[in-house]
């Protein structure tokens, strides 16, 4: 048994106790109503966008996120990917749905993660060292976010003003890791944020990037990606495929 084992245990019990936090702190979810808006986004957009939005989207409803979890996730992704002239907001884009599906699926269940002990507190450069699955870790972090929000604003994240949400995100992404506490910045930067980015930019088949709107926004053409002549023809110029991206579903 290694001398560090008790530390590992204390981190696990910390997670367990984190699990007890936050219940009752959260308000009723705004999630379902907002998620329903997702299907409506094509209305005012170009023909192509309308066609894409008309494709059957992932069925709304969550597999992993509870109502309380969903309220926080939707508040964060809706703020981080706001509605503007480039696209509708992150909930409408499907980022919350994507995150939910990932948590419920192989990734969230720690499918290929090495989860054997002993568990020790490493340096940040050692990466993930928890005894729990990404889904469990994700939820423990959500409870911490709720806690910080309750302490600072006496309100859950989904009841905050835009300015407060902005400040909350800065707080949770930058808090220095303390040895004894839940390192919320690590959770945000190494779990939440990457999932957020994947939800925006992964193929729509996973529930995010609905209607390929994030791809269209940046000009990523997606599939089929056969450019043997285009690499010459379109060198230095905008490729027409940048305006009409294709996804896996388009070829299925």
């Amino acid at each position, binding site marked *: 048994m*290694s001398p*560090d084992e008790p530390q590992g245990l204390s981190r696990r019990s910390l997670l367990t106790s984190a699990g007890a936090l936050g219940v009752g702190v959260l308000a009723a979810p705004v999630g379902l109503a907002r998620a329903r808006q997702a299907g409506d986004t094509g209305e005012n957009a170009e023909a192509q966008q309308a066609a894409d939005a008309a494709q059957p989207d992932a069925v709304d409803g969550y597999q992993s996120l509870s109502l309380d979890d969903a309220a926080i996730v939707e508040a964060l992704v809706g*703020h*981080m*990917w*706001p509605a*503007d002239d*480039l696209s509708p907001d992150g909930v409408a884009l499907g980022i919350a749905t994507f995150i939910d599906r990932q948590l419920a699926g192989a*990734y969230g269940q720690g*499918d*290929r*993660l*090495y*989860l*054997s002990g002993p568990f*020790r507190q490493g*340096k*940040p*450069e*050692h*990466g*993930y*060292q928890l005894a729990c699955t990404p889904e469990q870790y994700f939820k423990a972090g959500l409870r911490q976010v709720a806690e910080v929000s309750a302490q600072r604003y006496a309100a859950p994240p989904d009841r905050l003003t835009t300015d407060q949400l*902005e400040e909350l*995100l800065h707080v949770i*992404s930058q808090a220095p890791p303390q040895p004894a506490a839940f390192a919320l910045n690590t959770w945000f930067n*190494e779990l939440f*944020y990457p999932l957020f980015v*994947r939800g925006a*930019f*992964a*193929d729509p*088949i*996973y529930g995010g990037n609905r209607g390929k709107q*994030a*791809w269209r*926004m*940046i*000009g*990523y053409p*997606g*599939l*089929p*990606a*056969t*450019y*043997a002549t*285009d*690499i*010459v023809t*379109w*060198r*230095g110029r*905008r*490729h027409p495929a*940048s305006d009409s991206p294709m996804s*896996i579903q*388009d*070829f*299925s």
Partner: protein
Amino acid sequence: MATRLPEKEIVVIGGGLTAGLVARKLVPAGREVLVLERGPDWSGSAVGELPHQRDELRWATYRGMTRRENVETYTLRHSPDEEALPMRQLLSFLPGFGVGGAAQHWNGQTWRFSESDYVLRQHLTERYGAKSIPDGMTIQDWGLTYRDLQPYYEEFEALFGIAGKAGNLRGVRQAGGNPFEPWRATEYPLPPLEMSEASQIFKDATGQLGYEAFPLPAANASQPYRNPDGMQLGQCQYCGHCERFTCEANAKATPASLLFPLVRSRPNFELRAGAEVIRLNTTADGTRLESVSYVDVATGQEFIQPGSLFVLCSYTLSNVRLLLLSKIGTPYDPVTRTGTVGKNYCYQVTSGLNMFFPDRYINPFMGAGALGFVIDDFNNDNFDHTGLGFHGGGYISATQTNGRPIDTRRLPPGTPRWGSAWKKANADWYLRSMGLSVHGSNYANARNYMDLDPDYKDQWGRPLLRITFDFDDNDALMCRYVNGKMEEIAAAAGAKIVGKASVRKSPYDTRQYQSTHNTGGTIMGSDPGSSVVSPHLQSWDVENLFISGASVFPQNSGYNPTGPVGALGLRLAEDLLSYLSGPRRLG
């Protein structure tokens, strides 16, 4: 109870690149070859077919073709006096898994090492004096020279249809190629890949500074190709789903496209996928291997496979681990600096920066694994190190391998991480940005090595390999210096915004992909006291065991490793035929 199987003549452990090179030579020569590969046979699966091949989340972000960590991973500590922790997610490097190994999902950047690489200690001593080499820098000579390997480089490049431009044909300088290239006998088998916008920008900027940029040698076929074995490659589609993916267009040179098909239908060849070798079994006196033990991963059943000749082709990390688990050779001790197995683990020192051009469409989604232009002026000992305080160097390149949107969206420094301004920056710059990178050497350090972990186990309960590794002062000084040259190029390129390059230094960060260029641990040399295998890659301890792969490199050069891995593998195949004609210690 393990089941004992009928004897095979040659047993190859691992079914990746080097295994394919051995099989390709020995099977047509009439020898009986069995390849044991722990992973699956990927052929015919979604991995190589449209539309699923173009799934960034599955193959790149979640590393779908690489070995799962819960099957086996590695532990890491930064120095011998620390406790190691497991890499619970393998992110810094991606060990291959399944038929074709890592070479199924490699980039295809295919180099020859410098002439000085094989005689590094001798070369640096002659040029700068013995004192210029720090005591802890345990670099060694290979026990052979470039001249020995040159024909095999030629053969490997022909087999793999390397696209490039010669810079030095038999000592005669060739315009358009690498001025620092070691001499070659023939032009590259294929012309270079097309010029991308990023390559053009790089070529112009380096030209202004007086450097001669040249196309990166590529195992992405610039044209349809038929190799000397009659095997075919299609034309590269610049599809941007190359590294971490297998090629859907059959344009990337891989073991599964070029090597195994040649032998698969022959009666004297067998490839058993899902067979994980767990031990090499020596005879009672320890001087020969008599069999290997493997587990059928589908059933968990254990088998004993006897043979008369064994070739370890399981990639650097498994090569070392299998020797240690089988108690072959003497483990390296970093305190006394005695023992050899696990010694001189090296990696690669890499860095990069981003450039932003409002008026130029770089179109990063059109890319290939080895598409790019390079300058080699600051690599290895291509420049005078007098007074610099470090050895080694790196090549500087503008490669355009992919614009996959989860991972490759370059943003100017200072961009917020979310919100409308972040979205706008993505929209503004995704198509109009490019990167420069440094790919640098990593010279051996007495403290960097591999042994068995005392605490952590794999899925069968056997100790994991423990890696003790960190970047040292030499690495940081070298990186800082070459970064400086890269920054000058960025300044000359006329970008509106240039990002900062960070210096690769301690502590080694296992969360960032740096390269799957792990080297050392079963190093080659002419002295059994300081190496694990001879210059013929024959184990000093066990006569009928040969070891192939970058585990035999005494230290790592500034170039990607697979060119010399391939050349050594082809030379080994000839040595094996010679050994079979009369088993002995090859000299």
